[in-house]
């Protein structure tokens, strides 16, 4: 049920983000979700794309440091308290959310959030037990 995210190391300077999106466009890779976490010096760009292999190859060819990370795509009810419910389930189970970000597309009526959680398999089990929809990786990339 895991999804794969790719992470890219970026120096915090003008134009780097645009360069990544240009490289991916050139490689015919479609960005499905994106979040940038940064400090004054550097940033980590997190991406969900439709073709990980292609994206990683294209970025590496251009000298970027890239890694793959397992994340979980979760459907979140698009109403007040929707996100809170999920965070609460994880919190109650003592599971740590490292970070999360929103997916561009909805899944039907629901929003989709990407969670970086540890331990991931336990988290997936607990979410499913609580009737939270975890979207399979293969589906996420093509949503």
């Amino acid at each position: 049920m895991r999804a794969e995210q790719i992470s890219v190391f970026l120096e915090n300077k003008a134009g780097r983000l645009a360069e990544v999106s240009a490289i991916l466009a050139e490689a015919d890779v479609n960005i499905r979700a994106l979040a940038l976490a940064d400090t004054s010096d550097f940033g980590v760009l997190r991406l969900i794309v439709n073709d990980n292999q292609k994206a990683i190859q294209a970025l590496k060819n251009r000298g970027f440091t890239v890694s793959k990370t397992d994340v979980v795509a979760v459907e979140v009810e698009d109403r007040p308290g929707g996100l809170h419910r999920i965070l609460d389930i994880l919190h109650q189970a003592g599971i740590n959310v490292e970070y999360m970000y929103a997916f561009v597309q909805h899944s039907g009526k629901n929003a989709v959030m990407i969670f970086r959680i540890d331990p991931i398999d336990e988290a997936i089990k607990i979410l499913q037990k609580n009737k939270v929809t975890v979207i399979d990786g293969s589906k996420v990339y093509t949503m």
Partner: protein
Amino acid sequence: MILDIGFETMPREDLEAIVLRRLKATIDRVYANVPFYRKKFEENHITPNDIKSLEDLKRIPFTTKEDLRDNYPFGMFAVPMDNVVRIHASSGTTGKPTVVGYTARDINTWAEVMARSLAAGGATRGDIIHNAYGYGLFTGGLGVHYGAEKLGASVIPVSGGNTKRQVVIMKDFGPTILTATPSYALHLSEVAEEMGVSFEDLKFKFGIFGAEPWSENMREEIERQLNLTAVDIYGLSEVIGPGVAIECHEAKKGLHIFEDHFIPEIIDPGTGEVLPYGEAGELVFTTITKEAFPVIRYRTRDITSLNPEPCICGRTHIRMNRVTGRTDDMLIIRGVNVFPSQIESVLMEMDEVEPYYQLVVDRKDNLDTLTVLVEVGERLFSDEVKHLQDRERKIAKNIKDYLGVSAKVKLVEPKVIARSQGKAVRVIDNRKI
């Protein structure tokens, strides 16, 4: 003031006779007591008897920093440890420090040349000396300290750091002589200004600055901001510490080398050939009075030239000009010697770090800053910002622990660090000195 009129103004001919006698005695002793020197002499088919004139010194091979490292820690000592009363150390090229030892007589010799230096720089026994050189393994603090006591001045062993407290002491104790690195002197002046203390109202007359490279422009700046006369002092622990050479405040034009203790030569760093007076090359020293740690033709890696012209102050000892550079890539940051290779070994010891790094040195508000750019390869990278920050901190801590110098670590993308012909450009020194 000339402290030791007898030696410091001795006619050259008499001085040279004493130098030769002392050189011969030193050669005899190292040949008998230091296996390293005996071996070197034997390899070159030289015996102490071959050294008949000062010219013959040229026949003896050089001693290098690597030789000291190979004999780490005490292999170069010429006396039993029983006779060693002090040990100092400074950073070396591969992380191993250079270790030097002193007998009681060496400590006295050092105090004497340092007292002479303070006197040449304007100090008298009536002065209060604010000694802001670091105390510790570094020879700066204790070297000046013993010299000040020998001179009979009052010394404040304030050491480095805690600048605000230093300003308060300067205001309350009224020191008249400042000893510090030149960059720290300027930093003191800025902090004083922030605290509303003007050097105009302080009692400083002379400042004796060294342990890092500086320039005539910086001298003017210091003299203007600190309202004192600034002179340059030179020394290195391998030779004795501070007090090898000093500028007289009368001329402020080159540093008199205390030739009754140290023989200077200038060589072509490429060929090893001795260069004539006035030509710039690598400064080489032979100590002729030291007991515990004599060095024979030690290559300092400092670039300068010698000036034999008589000086208006009356001293007959030869002058060396300001050090203008280094034959190696050593950086001096806030008085601490830093070799890029040391940073490299710190990084290499950390599994996740790639051997691509660059050192950027700046001088901000008169304090040297070192930034280490480290390329983020796949092993160092993490999708979590806090992990990357942890790694930055860990690298900075290791550098601090290992080298004793604070550095800012900055993670950069791969290949940002320019590579010239396959070899990375390791150092960018933006200091304008």
